[in-house]
């Protein structure tokens, strides 16, 4: 049976999708050296550059967030595969500057290995670069050691915050402080309803029984341990927001950002219904929910499900979230 996807040679997926991105959003991004997406109009060299890395297959993430006010570059691997360290190092060299570089790495084994190697090599060469690792997935439990928590779509509001801080002329040290504070106050939990198809080999990932869903699914179909019969939208929202509130510590009087990130086949209709209940629960607790987002930001092919991201906001974070941004898939 043919894969039900609009693709050409599966070996060229990443190359072609990045070319498509650069053609479609030519005013915002361009592609250099095959796997590096950068802004069409670079940020002034006096400002800190923000760079990230990761596999493809999660579109619009990560490259869709390159642009004014967000990322300066995204180093792309292949489908669900981290880019090699040499490519990361090449990008760090490209953005070498006195102000320094912030490298944002999602906590996945492949990304971490490439980033670590590139960082060591870059630092040896005198490139000023600091890494922030995101690890906000609470599916393994709120108290799981940081190294065992995956980085999910929480990287996106983080890009927004550090991107705006860089644009505002903050120093690398300041941006790291702002970013790590944000990083420490956000949490994500994912839920999946169906599996998906790996677009290169056509294999099924994360197949689920017809009447079950899984809370805690990772963003490549990695299981999360929370299999349950299908719940209603309201029950699902309630079940997910509770541990997120616990993890972030948001309480009455706090300001919070809530994002529902669809991972593929789940409709925006559903995401909005889930957002409604989660926002109502937060409001009932006396939390001030700022304007949020519902949409597909970091996907897992055509998997049905979503990630719920909750961020407790300090006043500076709230301001950075509102600042101007002009990436293909996030504007403010």
């Amino acid at each position, binding site marked *: 049976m043919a894969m039900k996807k609009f693709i050409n040679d599966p070996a060229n997926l990443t190359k072609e999708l990045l070319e498509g991105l650069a053609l479609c959003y030519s005013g915002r991004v361009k592609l250099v050296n095959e796997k590096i997406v950068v802004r069409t109009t670079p940020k002034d060299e006096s400002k800190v550059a923000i760079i990230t890395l990761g596999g493809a297959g999660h579109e619009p993430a990560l490259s869709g967030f390159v642009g004014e006010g967000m990322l300066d570059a995204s180093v792309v691997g292949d489908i669900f595969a981290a880019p*090699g360290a040499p490519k990361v190092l090449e990008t760090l060299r490209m953005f070498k500057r006195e102000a320094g570089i912030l490298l944002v790495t999602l906590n996945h084994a492949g990304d971490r290995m490439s980033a670590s190697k590139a960082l060591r090599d870059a630092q040896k060469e005198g490139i000023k670069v600091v890494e922030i690792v995101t690890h906000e997935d609470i599916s393994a439990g709120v108290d799981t050691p940081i190294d065992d928590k995956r980085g999910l779509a929480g990287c996106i509001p983080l890009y927004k915050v550090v991107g705006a801080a860089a644009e505002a002329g903050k120093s690398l040290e300041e941006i790291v402080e702002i970013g790590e504070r944000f990083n420490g106050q956000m949490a994500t939990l994912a839920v999946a309803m169906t599996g998906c198809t790996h677009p290169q080999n056509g*294999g099924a990932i994360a197949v689920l029984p017809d009447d079950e869903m899984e809370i805690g699914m990772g963003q490549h*179909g*990695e*299981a999360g*341990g929370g299999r349950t019969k299908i719940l209603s939208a309201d029950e699902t929202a309630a079940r997910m927001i509770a541990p997120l509130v616990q993890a972030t510590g948001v309480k009455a009087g706090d300001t919070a950002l809530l994002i529902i990130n669809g991972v593929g086949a789940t409709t925006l209709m559903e995401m909005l219904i889930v957002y409604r209940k989660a926002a109502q629960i937060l409001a009932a607790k006396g939390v001030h929910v700022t304007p949020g987002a519902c949409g597909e930001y970091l996907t897992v092919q055509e998997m049905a499900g979503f990630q719920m991201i909750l961020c407790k906001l300090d006043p500076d974070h709230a301001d950075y979230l509102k600042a101007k941004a002009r990436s293909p898939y996030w504007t403010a």
Partner: protein
Amino acid sequence: MLTIQKFKTMIAAAGVDIRAEEKSFSELDAASGGDGDHGTAIVTAFNAMQKADGAEFKGYLKALTDALQNEACGSTSTLYGAWLQGMSDAAPEGASELDAAALAAVFKGGLDEIGFTTKARVGDKTLMDALIPATEALVAAQAEGVPAMLRQGAEAAAKGSDATCAMRARFGRAKNLGERSIGPRDAGSASMACIFKAFAKTVM
């Protein structure tokens, strides 16, 4: 003695066997909570490695590393890149033949370097469960000559991979699966065992 020619044949033979099992490696990856692409990843790695060449061990191993790191992506290529880099570093300058002791040193160098890249060790349900015992067995069999070294390496790799079935994943994408990761074999250990088996076959 192992000639560079023979070693290239070993790599080529491993590529053939790996390609034949591509689908099963991806299925193992999916079954154990991964993203179902290990077959794709390891085949991509071997495709990249095919482009490397060199007249002596150090250079050829370095060329393999570069090919992997520049053309391939993912954990597998990073880990194999480190392994081959370590082998190249440990290979004697300019040698186009390795005796048993030099071969042992090369494999030991490879293991050391990959050990810097990942913290995974025996029992963590990764390719290290095949690679560590294989390297140890190979080094221990030095006195018996190259073919015996590779044969014993292959046996140890297979046993190490078998043992992963009963393990709980603690590294890589499967780690969050917890108890449910117990049962299926680790995909990376399976491909590593396949490679050692092909090595052994080639020098038999």
